[in-house]
């Protein structure tokens, strides 16, 4: 057991910081990750990262990465998330969509999609949640019926981020209506421009983050769009979700907000209000606790050891850190938070998302409890 970054990891972080310093406009550090996506700048930035080999460094070299370790993956996330996530929605591509294609794709799918992702030229969205299948994802009802060399898809996905700009959707659909739960589900890699695929914005209070409804009406797609085996996609989905749950290192940005609050406290002489000393330290420790638990999961991933329990604990800690920092921000900045572009509004909205994006955090509590107590039935 030791907690030292290697020389290579330090160098990697320095390299990233230099790129961010040179390429990302100052206002980005004020943005909530996901607030700007699919813009000309995010494409441009991703292409720059790609040219420098920094867009998907943790991917195998055979697929356009540079065989970087899972540690470099999390360093990449920490630095970019803290900088407002200038990759826009493309962080999803490199965190889990590409790896899912590497793990389960045909050679044609790999050839078609992976190059686009590693060159920073494409955006994706995920077609997961439905009105009746949010946390209970396995209850999804969207159907894909085989028709020769095609599937015909009907159904609806909701609360989908980034869909307005996305060129592809990582879509889950039930291909065996007789099966229940996580059996009988398949994955499809679908161009959003496909006939029968419509996207409609769902107005929300989140304002820094958009939601969409995806509707599939007799959408006819080639069978070659299916990723992995028919009816048996759950293993691929689980692996993808494990990446998704800690892929956005929210604690890194929350720690940054905490430091800013401490600076503001000094500048505005807030030391006598709202238990600020105690709460600043509580916020800092919450962010650090989340970071150390994420590192535990990364360590397991790097060693090929089971990581599910560590990922679940890390996610719970991440959500806590976001919420603690949000509460402190609101209490300190008071009515300044009422403006949409305020730090308080941004932190509140990202904390509201934290426990739900990537699945309800209560699922992680279930998994931790299962490890401690058994299945509970």
């Amino acid at each position, binding site marked *: *057991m*030791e*907690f*030292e*970054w*290697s020389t290579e*990891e330090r160098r990697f972080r320095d390299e990233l910081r230099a790129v961010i310093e040179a390429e990302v406009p100052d206002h980005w550090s004020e943005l909530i990750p996901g607030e700007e996506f699919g813009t000309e700048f995010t494409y441009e930035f991703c292409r720059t990262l790609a040219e420098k080999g920094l867009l998907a460094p943790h991917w195998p070299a055979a697929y356009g990465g540079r065989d970087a370790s899972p*540690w470099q993956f999390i360093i990449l996330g920490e630095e970019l998330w803290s900088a407002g996530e200038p990759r826009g929605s493309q962080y999803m591509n490199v965190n889990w969509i590409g790896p899912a294609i590497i793990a389960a794709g045909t050679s044609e799918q790999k050839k078609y999609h992976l190059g686009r992702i590693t060159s920073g030229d494409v955006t994706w969205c995920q077609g997961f949640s439905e009105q009746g299948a949010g946390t209970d994802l396995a209850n999804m009802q969207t159907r894909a019926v085989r028709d020769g060399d095609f599937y015909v898809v009907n159904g609806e996905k909701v609360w989908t981020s980034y869909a307005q700009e996305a060129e592809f959707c990582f879509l889950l659909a039930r291909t065996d209506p007789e099966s229940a739960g996580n059996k009988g589900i398949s994955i499809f890699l679908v161009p959003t421009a496909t006939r029968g695929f419509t996207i409609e914005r769902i107005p929300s209070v989140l304002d820094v983050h958009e939601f969409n409804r995806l509707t599939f009406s007799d959408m006819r797609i080639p069978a070659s769009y299916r990723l992995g085996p028919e009816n048996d996609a759950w293993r691929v989905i689980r692996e993808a979700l494990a990446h998704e749950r800690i892929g956005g290192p929210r604690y890194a940005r929350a720690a940054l907000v905490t430091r800013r609050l*401490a600076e503001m406290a000094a500048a505005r002489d807030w030391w006598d209000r709202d*238990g600020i*000393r*105690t709460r*600043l*330290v*509580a916020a*800092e*420790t919450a962010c*650090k*606790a*989340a970071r*150390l*638990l994420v*590192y*535990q999961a*990364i*360590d*397991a991933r790097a*060693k090929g050891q089971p990581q599910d329990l560590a990922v679940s*604990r890390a996610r*719970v*800690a991440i959500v*806590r850190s976001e919420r603690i920092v949000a509460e402190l921000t609101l209490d300190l900045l008071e009515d300044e938070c009422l403006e949409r572009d305020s730090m308080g509004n941004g932190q509140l909205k990202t904390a509201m998302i934290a426990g739900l994006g990537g699945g309800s955090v*209560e699922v*992680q*509590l*279930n998994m*931790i*409890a299962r490890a*401690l*107590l*058994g299945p*509970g*039935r």
Partner: protein
Amino acid sequence: MDYNFSASQQRVIAAADRVVEAAGGIERAFAVSVAAGYDRDLDRALADAGVLDGADLLERVLIAERLAELGVATTYGLRSVVAVDGLLPPGGLAVAVLGRQGPVRYAAVADHLVVIDGDDLIAVDNATKSVTTVRSGFGYPYARIASEELDGTRLKGMGEAWRTRLTLVTAAEIAGNAAAAIARTAAHMRLREQFGRTLSTFQALRHRLAEAAVSAEATRWMVREAAFTADPRDIDLAASYAAQTAAHLVPELVQICGARSFTLEFGLHVFTMRLVGLRLELGGPDRLAARVLAGESVS
């Protein structure tokens, strides 16, 4: 970065476990803790075994965490981390901080009493004349120190280092106690039936235990990382987090286990009451926060 124990770390932990086993086993040792006693024999056995020969600070902290998790009643963990400088002859150790008002763990029974006095240490001679055992229910024998009667050898300039390591070991002991308290609560939940079902099937309770387990696990790693870096600020952050964890866990685990958690025969109190005692030794949230923000030690 490596979260697995090294061979050397495994060796020191296994060695401590073997000593506990050879000294009559964990049941005997735990029985001493149930009565808030002092296990002088085990303290000596651990020292005699040379468990920590050549150990670094992290290994010492791992021993303190492990002994706390086992629920034994020795000062060996405390001594292992705090007295790394080899100043003291063998024997049990109690450490007091001048200016703190409360009683001191093991002060009436340990062979050595060391008082941190600002930048200095006082290795107290004939400690028995300066201490008075107090009534207390926080899992350890506590005694009050009469600060005006402290005679001993003054060691200049070592106070801050001892204070920092005292903070570290107290946090490590919270980590060990927290892990044990959760394991005991989980074991109880699997067996205890109410309304025809085991407690382990009630989701409201499952989630509360899971939340507690996240805090306990994070505490371990905050403390271990702080022991590795030996950075005073990391240590203060770990202490603050450990105190928050203790404050969170105790009412939760007591509530989950019910009224039996008040009884000595159930045994959970060894861990829960020690968690309370240890966090009170660290100090309240404001004291700990001031220390972090000032980047200096508070006592």
